[in-house]
């Protein structure tokens, strides 16, 4: 939305149907995932997705702090999403704000629906997501990183949780918006998919879309999630690569 002294709205879609960074409408930004990037955490992952850089760390299951949050029949899942002060162009005021609170909540709830929390009563599974560099889609990048970190931490769950945002830019439905598309586009629709069941466990929308556009956006997003899923699995396979046990004299 144009601010004071509004800048020119950039052309988001070329006549050839290419986007501001030359991508096609159904094309993801480059995604690189490193599982097990940290030492102290029980599980961790680092995600570079386009110009996003996100680190996720998972601790637990462990004793609950503060204790009154403890639940007798299952683990509580506590998620904190945080953006570094240097993650955006203008300095972001550090600390919890309403946006990060909301994102922490929806990501935590997404994981609650896939983690087998009842296996660890009276414990806490703590997820920390730190956005080091932001370029739209950080909640999805954070979800992807946290999901790989959870698997790295050996937490039992239904499935990994790939996530991506679909949006509407220049009148067209486009996969995986980058910053300019998010800022100047007409709609943004982040989602997280459980590939095993095909269920969505996170779905938000900002802006406007017709019913028909929404249906197409969901289709496109689910396809994108399936691609991201493969990259997530690849990252874990690399981390836990097994060589044949031959030659082991022990």
């Amino acid at each position: 939305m144009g601010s004071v002294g509004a800048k020119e709205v950039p052309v988001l879609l070329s006549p050839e149907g290419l986007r501001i960074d030359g991508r096609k409408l159904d094309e993801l930004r480059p995604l690189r995932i490193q599982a097990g990037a940290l030492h102290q955490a029980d599980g961790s992952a680092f995600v570079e997705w386009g110009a996003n850089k996100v680190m996720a760390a998972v601790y637990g299951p462990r004793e609950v702090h503060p204790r009154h949050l403890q639940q007798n029949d299952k683990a509580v899942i506590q998620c904190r999403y945080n953006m570094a002060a240097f993650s955006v162009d203008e300095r972001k005021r550090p600390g919890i704000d309403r946006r990060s609170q909301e994102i922490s909540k929806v990501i935590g709830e997404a994981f609650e629906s896939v983690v087998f929390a009842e296996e660890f009563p009276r414990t806490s599974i703590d997820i920390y997501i730190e956005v080091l560099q932001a370029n739209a889609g950080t909640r999805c990048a954070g979800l992807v990183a946290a999901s790989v970190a959870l698997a790295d931490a050996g937490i039992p769950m239904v499935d990994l949780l790939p996530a991506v945002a679909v949006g509407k830019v220049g009148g067209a439905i486009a996969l995986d918006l980058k910053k300019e598309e998010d800022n100047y586009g007409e709609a943004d629709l982040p989602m997280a998919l459980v590939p095993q069941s095909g269920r969505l466990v996170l779905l938000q929308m900002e802006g406007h879309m017709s019913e028909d556009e929404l249906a197409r956006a969901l289709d496109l997003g689910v396809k994108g999630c399936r691609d991201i899923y493969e990259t997530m699995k690849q990252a874990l396979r690399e981390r836990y690569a097994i060589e044949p046990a031959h030659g082991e004299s022990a």
Partner: protein
Amino acid sequence: MSRGHRPGRRRRGREGGPSPPSGERVLVLPGEEIPSHGLKPGPGTYRVGGKVFASVLGLLSPRPPVVQVVPLSGRYIPHPDDVVVGIVTDVQTTFWLLDIGAPRWAPLHMTGTPWKIDVGETDRYLRVGDAVIVRVESLEATGRIGVTMNGERLGKLEGGTIVHISPARVPRVVGRGGSMVDTIGRHTGAKIAVGQNGRVWVDGSPEAIRRVSDVLRLIDEEGQRSGLTERVESYLRSTRPTQPEGPEAPEREGSSRDRVEEEFESGDGAEEESDVGPGPEGSEPH
């Protein structure tokens, strides 16, 4: 959605029985469908609509009548009779709470020690930060982990240092029949006690401790690769102290180094188990 057996409620590998028919180790990730061949979903798996899926990252391990996934990562999941290294995190009037790297702190009751203690005197025996070797005695549905210090080779750990490794790597550190930990001890002269929870207590000269720590890190990082024993031995040879008076001499084995006790199971590395306690207490500090 029906779960199979709860992981951690079933003793891995101790039931005996042969290792999986095919020696091949298959890595599975959460959400991946597992060919169950009619087997029931075991630990680390779940079933939806007749299909079995992995719930944790680990190695596929068919153990008729169940198919299970042995985790390759994650916190220590306690099993009865595991010998573990714990750190005192809290002192109450009748018990201590120990951090054994498990999801919950484990209470060690004062009756579970070799000492005669009056109520309120617990802090005269163990304080926050002290290290102990204990045995897992009971597991409750609430997640409570009961531990005891009564038993051979259990007790307070004096001196030395504690190195953390992944609990999934413990069988590698111990080796078949304790061969790996024997090798490390023989080459360095250090006293080593491996807890099933991935905490390894090491005592000896500073040089010995450093070499053992390096080897443990090597195993922790490369434990799933083949040729581990050779690499460990070549590391130990290459770092052999130049002075012959170093605690290297093999003839000291069994004298200054305490005998270690092992139980283990044939089968692939992920299944074998071993409990190694420390030697008798009160061994001289360095």
